């Protein structure tokens, strides 16, 4: 267990999540990808706390913020899916491309 291996785990989780967020058609699966990305951030924050600056609690506070963001992201995501589904019967990202440039 070193900082490098911990960060490597974080990077692997982040990139698996990135793949899901970019490739999934279902909005709920896309949100799972986002959750995995934030999961990686939690690991990286904890690793930096333990190996770089364990004396202060800043790293722990950052992990706490990331966990909160994870929960809020999921709540907002489901609310948006519900609104979208109510209005248009849509649950795929390809059908919700209104903002496509």
């Amino acid at each position: 267990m070193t900082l490098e291996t911990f960060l490597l785990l974080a990077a692997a989780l982040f990139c698996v999540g990135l793949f899901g967020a970019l490739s999934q058609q279902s909005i709920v699966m896309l949100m799972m990808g986002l959750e995995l990305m934030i999961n990686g951030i939690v690991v990286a924050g904890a690793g930096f706390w333990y190996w770089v600056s364990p004396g202060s609690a800043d790293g722990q506070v950052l992990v706490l913020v990331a966990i909160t963001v994870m929960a809020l992201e999921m709540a907002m995501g489901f609310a948006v899916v519900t609104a979208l589904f109510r209005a248009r019967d849509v649950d795929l990202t390809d059908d919700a491309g209104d903002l496509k440039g």
Partner: protein
Amino acid sequence: MEAVAFWVLALAAVGSGVAVFVVGSMARATFALLASFLCVGAELLLIGLHYLGVLVILMMIMEMLVMVVFMVAYMMNPAGLMPMTMLHNERGAFAISGTAFAALAVGIFAVPWPARAGNPPRDPTFALGESIMGSKMLVMMVIGIAILATMIATVVLAAHRGRYDRDGAS
């Protein structure tokens, strides 16, 4: 011993993370995601973050159970009775995430990380509580406001249109 536990949990976390996008059913994907979160929670326990580790484990169990309900509510194929793939631009996504991982890995091993400053406190949970109720209280207040705003916004978004705004509902 700790190193073995770290690698086993790390491989399980990444493996179940990959499984999320490989398995054929949404319900299975949710539980694979839950397994990934549980492994990460255990990793936090390994480096002495007992409160945050248990927080991740308990919160993610609840969150994923809520997610299963949504899966069953919205998905055409919650139980995986008809295997299917629902991907777009798979090759592009694979290239982007692979490149990102390679860049991150190079950075992780190339950057000279600073030396460890200080030692972990005897009780990290106590240190965390003291700091969010002391010098980092602003963070806690912002989190509180954000949670309140999210609760209001989710109810507004998810509720049926009331009788006062039926013109806005299309």
